[in-house]
């Protein structure tokens, strides 16, 4: 059984694998170009940040020598080639704001983002699937309608608003949770550090969870609803299977579209994290990108955008790869 399955899987890889790799390589390349171009299309440049007009004038020679340090002198095409060449060597350049290597700047923020977004994706997926399946199981019931209304209402609220509301309730009124940051500015160690850090994670993660919850819920619900109208469910019911068994069968099939949405949600949430991170002063990639935009810090923006694109592409790829595993029909179509 397993042998046959893996054989079929390999067959699929050989026929589709190359095409897949080529496709993704093209996407990565396109992402590189866009990531390079986007920051430069916005009005203003790093010099506006480095020497504001109130502080002095900058002539062309001075300008070039200042930009040279960041590899931002020369024409756009020159900059792009040197960007690609440096990138190939793992060199992300130097931050205009910080004067530090971008890799260092990003590394400092990356893990907070992973923690925050990872938590939010996990919680919103689990919660969204559980609620969505529950709602879809008895479509039109009072439970379904109220869940649908509640989740959609929550989904319609902008993240910064939810964040501020949580802040008001849980920090200002109840005084349960700290207001800002990922770690206490005071030197905590050991258990106290873990507790404090976990507390500081709660509100941003909950806010971000709400951002992701809606789409997972809606897809899970409609997937459940459409599975329940399938013949096999009718058959199962006719055979007299218990509700629990029927639900398990339907749920397994309904997971296919849900997995895609959950994985794509990863990239959505990384983007939404920008807002959430600035509300809670959370030092993740989102707030880094926000600050970098305001300084027109091209090297940092390129790096953050690249990372976000890679995350989105990886999520897509995993969805692509996961699909045939979850759904035998796709597997068969692939090996045909």
């Amino acid at each position, binding site marked *: 059984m397993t042998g046959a399955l893996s054989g079929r899987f390999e067959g699929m890889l050989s026929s589709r694998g190359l095409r897949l790799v080529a496709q993704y390589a093209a996407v990565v390349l396109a992402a590189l170009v866009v990531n390079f171009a986007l920051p430069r299309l*916005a*009005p*203003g*440049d790093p010099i*506006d*940040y*480095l*020497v*504001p*007009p*109130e*502080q*002095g*004038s*900058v002539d*062309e020679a*001075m300008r070039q020598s*200042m930009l040279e*340090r960041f590899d931002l002198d020369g024409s756009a095409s020159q900059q792009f080639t040197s960007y690609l060449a440096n990138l190939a060597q793992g060199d992300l350049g130097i931050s205009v*704001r*910080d*004067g*530090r290597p971008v890799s260092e*700047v990003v590394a*400092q923020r990356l893990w907070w983002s992973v923690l925050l977004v990872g938590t939010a994706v996990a919680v919103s997926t689990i919660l969204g699937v559980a609620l969505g399946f529950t709602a879809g199981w008895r479509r039109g019931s009072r439970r379904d309608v109220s869940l649908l209304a509640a989740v959609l209402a929550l989904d319609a609220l902008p993240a910064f608003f939810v964040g*501020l509301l949580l*802040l*008001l309730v849980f*920090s*200002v*009124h*109840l*005084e349960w949770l*700290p*207001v*800002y*940051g990922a770690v206490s*500015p*005071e*030197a905590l160690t050991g258990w106290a550090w873990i507790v404090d850090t976990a507390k500081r994670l709660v509100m941003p993660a909950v806010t971000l969870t709400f951002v992701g919850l809606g789409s997972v819920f809606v897809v899970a619900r409609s997937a459940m609803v459409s599975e329940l109208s399938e013949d096999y469910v009718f058959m199962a019911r006719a055979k007299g299977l218990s509700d629990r068994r029927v639900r398990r069968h339907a749920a397994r099939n309904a997971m296919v579209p849900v997995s895609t949405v959950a994985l794509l949600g990863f990239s959505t949430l990384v983007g939404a994290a920008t807002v959430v991170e*600035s*509300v*809670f*002063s959370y*030092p993740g990639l989102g*707030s*880094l990108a926000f*600050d970098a*935009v*305001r*300084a*027109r810090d091209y090297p940092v923006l390129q790096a953050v955008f690249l990372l976000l694109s890679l995350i989105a592409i990886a999520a897509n790829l995993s969805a692509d790869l996961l699909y045939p595993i979850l759904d035998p029909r796709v597997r068969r179509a692939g090996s045909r």
Partner: protein
Amino acid sequence: MLRHRITILALILSMFSVALAPLAAAHQDDGDPVVVRVGLHAAEKNLNPFIVPQALPITHDFTMLVYDTLFWSQSRLDPEPWLATGADPSDDFRTWTVTLRDGVLWHDGERFDASDVAFTFRYFAEDGGPGRYGHHVYDHPVFESATVVDDLTVELVFEDPVPTFKLLPGGDLPILPEHIWASVENPRADATSLPVGTGPFTMVEYNPGVSYRLEANPDYFLGRPTVDTLIMPVVTDAQAAFAGLQTGELDFVTRNLPAPLVPRVEENPELAVVTGSRMQSLYLMFNTRKPHLRDPAVRKAMSLSLDVQAIVDIVEGGLGRPGNDTWTHPDSPWAHQHGGHVFDPGVAATMLNDAGYLFGDGDVRRNADGDPLAFTLLVNAAAPPQIRAGELVAEQLSVMGIDITVEPLDPPAITAARRPSPDGPPTVDMFIAVFESHAHADPDHLFFFFHTPGRGVGGIFSGYANPEFDAVLDSALGAPIDEKLSLIAQAQEIFAEAAPAVVLYYPDGRWGYRPGAYDGWISDPGHGVFTKRSFLEPDAAGSTVPEAVEDAAAEQAPEADDPEPDTAEAPAEQPEAEPASSEASEEASDEADGESAAEPSATDDSEPAASTPDQAASAGAPEAADEGGSSTGALIAIAAGVFVALVIAPAAARRRRRAGTVED
């Protein structure tokens, strides 16, 4: 029976916590370090004075916690000696002989001397490049040479006469340690290493974009600072920052308290508002290189059409002063004696008619060629007051037949529109921005910003060109202070008539803080309260305490009678303070229909207890682990008491009642 037993248990628990709480508070008394948590509203890099980004509002005062200037401060006509003990000019005001304080140490233990001062001036002028501090050494006045006369005397020579040397650059330029910077090739490169200065605080930790930690410099030449540790997280979101102030996570927020929040902070017994002048202005700048705006009559007519009093009333709730046509902040020593703004739409209409801008068949005035008076006004999208002010300007000018489109943009986009390109003038029509004290206190600020392009930053800042105005400013540059004052006043009169810019209002400086944590905030005009003076003993600078430094602490409500910063007693003074949780518990206990007298009294008892350790924690030291332990113990005890009183007791009561009904 069971219910009573539980209530008694709750009572005992809360009494236990009452007993514990003073214990936790008592820990504060034994000379514990004073820790103040300051919420910064923007990241300030590592205070490298060669890269001061976007002239962030508090950068100078933050920088001056770590560094010192020769004199303090530039906002007064006669600044007091700081690192210097005095400075004497030559007859032509080109050479200044500066004598320095003896026995000053750098944070790393090296001795400060005249060669550091000579080095600083040379380094800023020759290697620094353009920047916030440098342009006062190479732009005007132009630095020529520095000679070390002896260990504590340095002779500084400038190319032009600088009668105001003590103010600028003397009161502005941070003095740098030669032994550190001499080997730095590119002073702009480093934005992360910890600065070494002579200032009252040593920066011991900098987490880029996240937080700072400063410790008192015990050897500070004006005495040990009154605060031992400054913990400064960057809290960029305004709501979060003020929430942090309310919860006690922050003791001071550098962001100006928004007008709508003032009553809320004043109502809170744990918070207070301190006011002070930062000499800020919110102004409307015209690009005088653009058609129509080139015409002084058009600009003056717009100025006459603006009801600036209405703007400050609406935007700031009246917490500010209306703008003066003479530009300079009224608190600045350089302000015109008779500032004021003329609001006269009638005259404005006549001026526009005379200039040939007439109403045709539409609502917008046009000149003879049919060109409409239509402009785009750029405002900072991240600054609500600027957006509101911009909309009011548009509204007030539309009545006059001038069409203004307000466009909120992010700051770099505005900067880009303001900067002249190699091929021509900037594209912006007009913009609203905020100026900080330095720009108003500078004796040559009109020269810098409004002199005909060529020298100074005027070229890229306003582009305003007026030979008559230039002549007055040129002669003011080298004039002795008395003469300079009258020349600057003369220039301001020309300015008021020509209106290259209009100050809409001068915002009041006001900040929220927790007196329980630190109550020594002092307003130093031009600096606000987040400035080094707030952390020094009032008479630290010797006998020369200027009258202008007011004790801002006198303005607060509950602690007004206690000007001494006293962290230990503050929490004990306000036992009435009700934290939100105890209010909630009271309501909850009402709901639980506790008819026996024991229950409400249990919650009443826990009330002061709950407030005291809470405040103690916010007032005290974070590092003392034992104290943390005991106050945590008290909190746990309270929590347990409240839990028993609120959850178990009513539940038990309900069970009993239900059981009772069955029995019945």
